[in-house]
């Protein structure tokens, strides 16, 4: 997940209330310097204080890493790197077909891009975090950094898989489709490789609590039915009518708003479908930004390009309560941004720019900083 405006908003509120954010904000205090080894690296997102959240689906764990990359650079280097896949492969001593880039996140403090990468072909390929500062690429050594980890417990069959013997080693995994830091909580969206389910976890940070997933029931416009189990692909947080909301894009593209306050352990939620972005299309990534005093959302899609949505329209949307027919688009209006083709990854670089990973016609990947439309 790619948005942090709520963080600064939260800080402003604290200042208004006379709270000292510095005292409350020492989020790395409880972290320890351990030799953190990632079993896998999926989605990544930044929280405050240079804390990088890394989803480790194979270990069913979310790690928080104090990168120490907290000094606000006076002049941030613009990230731009052609052939990033080739360069990451070279730095890891292998060929480009043997690396997989899962996600990227920009540290809002320094403007440095962090990419989660698998080095190798199989599920058990070692995972690496690679940083890109300007055009300089480096692999991040996690061993000297402070970190904290949270095991995503409460798999639905905890009782069934607890036991002795090799026979019951569970083949179930929980793919993590997105994660993000919102108002002191880490939100994790996932789906299982066995039962058709969707889970959204809300974990207090610094890590505490059970991490029991909230199951999100949404009205799925394209399907004209209640759909409880469709998996969330990507999400962002923003304020709708002054209230913090999660805007989630589902695998089959409905866009749904869910009040953040509703996401509680064990809760069954009903979101409001505010748009239906068309079928045969997968949402890939989303960001929220402000331009000329107005707030917008950008949604990168697998086959329908980059969509720009005014968040004011999200507030106004009555929600889709009928079956969508015809062209498969309904709900809030959106604009397709021409020229942003082949975008696979997206994050906000700063207030005015986005960092994207784009697939070129030759099949290689470039990191580019583009002005927000």
């Amino acid at each position, binding site marked *: 997940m790619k948005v942090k405006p709520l963080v600064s908003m939260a800080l402003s509120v604290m200042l208004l209330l006379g709270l000292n954010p510095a005292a409350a904000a020492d989020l790395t205090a409880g972290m320890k310097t351990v030799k953190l080894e990632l079993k896998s690296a*999926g989605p990544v997102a930044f929280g405050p204080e240079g804390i990088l959240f890394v989803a480790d*689906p*194979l270990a069913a764990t979310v790690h928080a890493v104090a990168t120490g990359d907290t000094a606000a650079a006076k002049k941030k280097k613009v990230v731009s790197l052609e052939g990033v896949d*080739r360069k990451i*492969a*070279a*730095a*890891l*001593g*292998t*060929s*480009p077909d*043997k690396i*997989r880039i899962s996600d990227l996140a920009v540290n809002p403090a320094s403007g440095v891009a962090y990419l989660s990468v698998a*080095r190798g*072909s*199989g*599920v*058990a*390929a*070692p995972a690496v975090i690679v940083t890109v500062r300007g055009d300089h*690429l480096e692999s991040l050594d996690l061993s000297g950094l402070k970190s904290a980890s949270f095991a995503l417990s409460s798999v*639905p*069959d905890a*009782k*069934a*898989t607890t*036991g*002795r*013997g090799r*026979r019951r080693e*569970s*083949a*179930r*995994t929980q793919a*993590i*489709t997105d994660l993000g830091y919102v108002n002191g909580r880490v939100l994790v969206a996932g*789906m*299982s*490789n*066995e*039962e*058709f*389910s969707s889970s959204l976890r809300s974990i207090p940070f610094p890590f505490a609590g059970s991490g029991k997933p909230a199951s999100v029931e949404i009205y799925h416009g*394209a*399907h*004209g*039915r*209640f759909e*409880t*189990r469709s*998996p969330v692909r990507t999400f962002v947080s923003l304020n709708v009518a002054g209230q913090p909301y999660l805007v989630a894009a589902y*695998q089959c593209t409905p866009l749904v708003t869910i009040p953040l306050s509703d996401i509680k352990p064990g809760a069954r939620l009903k979101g409001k479908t505010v748009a239906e972005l068309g*079928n*045969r299309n*997968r949402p*890939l990534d989303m960001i929220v930004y402000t331009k000329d005093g107005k707030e917008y959302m950008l949604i990168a899609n697998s086959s329908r390009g980059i969509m720009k949505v005014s968040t004011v329209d999200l507030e106004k949307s009555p929600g889709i309560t009928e*079956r969508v*027919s015809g062209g*498969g688009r309904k709900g809030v209006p959106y604009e397709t941004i021409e020229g942003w083709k082949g975008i696979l990854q997206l994050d906000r670089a700063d207030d005015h720019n986005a960092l994207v990973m784009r697939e070129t016609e030759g099949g290689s990947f470039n990191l580019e900083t583009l002005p927000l439309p």
Partner: protein
Amino acid sequence: MKIASARFILAGLLPALLCGCGQPVRDEPGPVRIGLVSSPDGARYFEVSGLDAGHPGGKASWGGTFRVYTVFDKRSAGEELPAIAGSYVFQDGVLRFRPRFPLEPGLAYSARFYYSPGRVKEARFEIPGEDLVRGTSVTEVYPSADVLPENLLKFYIHFSSPMSVGQAYDNTRLLNSKGETVRYPFLELDEELWDPSGRRLTIFIDPGRIKQGVLPNKVVGPVFKVGERYTLEISDEWQDAAGARLGAPFRKSFKVSAADHRSPDPAAWKLAAPAGGSREPLSLTFAAPLDHALLHRLLWVENEAGERVEGEVRVEAGERRWSLLPDTRWSPGRYRLMIRSILEDLAGNGIDKPFEVDVFEQVRERVDSKTLSREFTVSPRQR
């Protein structure tokens, strides 16, 4: 310690080919020797010897003096790419660089010692490629039955060895009875759904084409048509984790029956209780096949004390039969078959709710995900 053969290149002879940085590279004469060494644990590292005693050992950063580059193109210097990550140790006048990851068979590496800017000693090392053996195969595909419901939700593909990630949807096709490819049948997820061993992949049928009265279903139609035959085809282009292609393509042919919209009903399962004192299996027979993976995970047996009966679970007869072969003999007494309500059939109908809940037509009472149980008695063996 074994020193691998190093192919030293007189870079001065091939400046145009070797130079990607705009400056001619010269293989400077000098006392330094560069080797590739295997340590007893099998890890390989680069070693620079012949450094004179006066060399500033213990330098904070050796990265400015000695770097190793991956060479994709043998004609390039490699230097235009980032140097490979690793760690340096300088001891007794010898500098060792250990790459963070093992060197890759089939690739070349350029190790460069910089006497000073522009004075470079280079050694190239080619790591012999490994012969890839095409031995990995598809061992099973579930559901195993050859008649499957129109609203089938998923396939599990089992392989004999761990597979490469990221090639699933390029190598899996669904063909109709005319041999034509069915378009967009699967929910293509960026995160391919592998088990932890990398040997089982879950592929979901696009749920938008299963649901009734929905747009994809209306426009392109459902993936399957009742009465037709289909073939799930797995290409032998798919590589295993080592990079070898599958030994052979795999095909599973099946016929499609009417959609199933009913939840499985545990009360209707036929339960054959074993005799006390025996190690006979406890067996369950279902009216319709259930999900292969979930049957292994979401059904178990407990004794009266709530202890789980350990044993081997078998799922057979086209996922219509589940049996438990206990590790020890059954003690006579009362037992409970435990069933998680999220257990699904082939169409994703769970015990707690069917796959489709249509609020326009009816709102069903929901059962929260929970554990159900069914009691049975193991009687003393009749003599």
